[in-house]
């Protein structure tokens, strides 16, 4: 079973990387007001119960994949 975790800087948290990307995009002539940079973790999970997988992924995020103080996360499970 495949799953994807999207980790991004929490709303309101200064994101210097995003600011640098936004300013570079503007230099290239793109009309970009804001850019925020996060990270994607693609996982291949054992088992075939999406509900169980989701609960496990929550725990993975809380314990390791994200820092809840500064990052929010989004979990997508692909049952296929």
């Amino acid at each position, binding site marked *: 079973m495949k799953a994807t975790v999207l980790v991004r800087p929490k709303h309101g*948290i*200064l994101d*210097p*990387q995003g600011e*640098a990307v936004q300013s570079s995009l503007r230099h290239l002539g793109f009309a970009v007001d804001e850019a925020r940079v996060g990270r994607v973790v693609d996982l291949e999970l054992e088992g075939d119960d999406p509900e169980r997988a989701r609960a496990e992924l929550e725990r993975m995020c809380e314990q*390791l*994949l994200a*820092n809840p*103080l*500064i990052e929010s996360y989004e979990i997508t499970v692909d049952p296929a």
Partner: protein
Amino acid sequence: MTSGAPRPTIAVVVFPGSNDHGDAVLALEGLGADAVPVWHGESELPEASAVVLPGGFSYGDYLRCGAIARFAPVMRAVTRFAGEGGLVLGICNGFQILCEAGLLPGTLRPNSSLSFVCRDVSLLVEHADTPFTTRCEPGERLTMPVKHGEGCYFADDQLLSELEVNRQVVLRYADNPNGSVADIAAVVNEERNVFGLMPHPEHAVDPLLGPTGGAAVLGSLVEAARERMLAMA
């Protein structure tokens, strides 16, 4: 330092990717301690009166600095040691590990400039009533180097006001090199036995090599470790 004073044992944890443990050992030995390197895979600490987590790039700093190192076997022993009131000092990457492990509040983020900074900084001592700053005076300035890409200390507004009320902000930058909130360079836990700082005291103990502000911090720790050793004996 009186040469006849009993020498406390201080454990210096070595992770894969640590690179400042050598200087930490030398500095602590010079200030009157017996420093013992401890590999990250150990599940027990040696009989020691204090533990130092040195600087470096533990586990390649993958994911977030310190995020993987906090799961090293030795960290369970360090957490137990801290829980029993043991003195724990985290320097740079060691500070990041202590934050990730939840032994210190807050977290360290990429520098606001996105640049690695490597230079001497001037630090303002806020509180001298921690085992890591007894040799300092409040208001005193200490000079020692920073060298990091991810030293921007962050705490949200609520945590920040708790830190200020509990007098946990121990050192502040006179000239903030990394965008840390409230110019914070060092924090201590509420119980005042776990301390973390981004600057490197172990690189600033010998006048031959530059500023010596680090001797005040490490000297305080050696003294506190000695008192602890004598109290336990």
